[in-house]
């Protein structure tokens, strides 16, 4: 199967890639969206004073 890979998806913040598989007729057989990043906000906000969290989570996305 032919594979078209769009990596990175550009003109956005945050990383993503798309893999599109084409069958013999050239039609889309399947497509996958992949998110290659790991940050850990879910973990590293735990235990911080709650009033600090609005100063941490904006750094998930600053656009």
């Amino acid at each position, binding site marked *: 199967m032919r594979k078209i890979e769009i990596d990175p998806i*550009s003109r956005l913040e945050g990383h993503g890639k798309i893999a599109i598989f084409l069958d013999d007729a050239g039609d889309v057989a399947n497509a996958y969206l992949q998110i*290659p*990043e790991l940050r*850990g906000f879910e973990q*590293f906000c735990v235990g911080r004073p709650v009033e600090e969290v609005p100063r941490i989570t904006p750094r998930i996305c600053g656009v």
Partner: protein
Amino acid sequence: MPEKFKFAFMPSASCGGCEIAIVDIDEVILKVAELADIVYWPTVLDFKDKDLEAIPDGGVTVGFYNGAVRNTHDVYHAKLMRQKSQVLVAFGACAQMGGIPSLGNFWTTEEIAHRMYDTVPSVVNPEGTRPQTTFDAPEGELTLPRAMERSYALDQVVDVDYYLPGCPPQVKWIVAAVEAVASGELPPKGTVIAGTKAVCDECPRERSEEKQITEFKRIHLVENDPEKCLLEQGIMCCGPATRDGCEAACVVAGQGCRGCFGPTDNVNDMGAKLASAIASLVIADTQEEADRVLGQLDDPAGYFYRFGLAKSMLGVQRGERKDDDE
């Protein structure tokens, strides 16, 4: 007309705020356009890795790298930017010292992954599925980069020429950097392009220079005097150890500094400097009393290393520490 400069902007483990800061330079962007061609900037234009790979080594006049180094693809990008750029700038707190993503360095990557993919309340994952570096889908193979064991600052991976601090960097210092490039009058290698003193030196709040703190208070639980130093009122502020240049933006807005400009020139470890600055303000006759006051400061490590845990001299990671190969 002399040949135009070539600028490249690389995002890595970042939030995009640094790139918005570049756009925020308003009409100076026209000056940038006059001065330089942008040869790589995937956040804004449709560039792929191959476009940067195709540029001859040293073919980029100035490369700006924003974000921390968190996975193997970031490592590749850091090395590629170093190879292609005559001058490499660590742009923003994440690239300079790990930034917010490096708060994750308190845990191992496995502990973070366990939280993200197994136990976080919004996730249902009974089979414990985790990202794999390769996956055999029915249609063919899929690949992903591998998360490193922790976040790194850019200069922990490659040689860096200059630093533009801040989360994000402020317009006036971005403009100063562009003007330095334009004039050819570059500062000595390793310069942090911002102020040379501490945030306290720019802060409009009054300091008494005498010992003041008898207890620490959480900012939302007290009414603070807007004319007086926050720290002296017992409200946490990282100003004494943080490089100036932001005009004490957070303090002016009524919040304590959190150190996003990184340490001043003569400070090696932000936490050590802040701990001593704070200890010197505590009024206590006995060590027990001093410990009691300092003990009221909840989560000191989260204040001292909010933006710079990757560069901390502490070995803070909990759990079983693993090392990266590179």
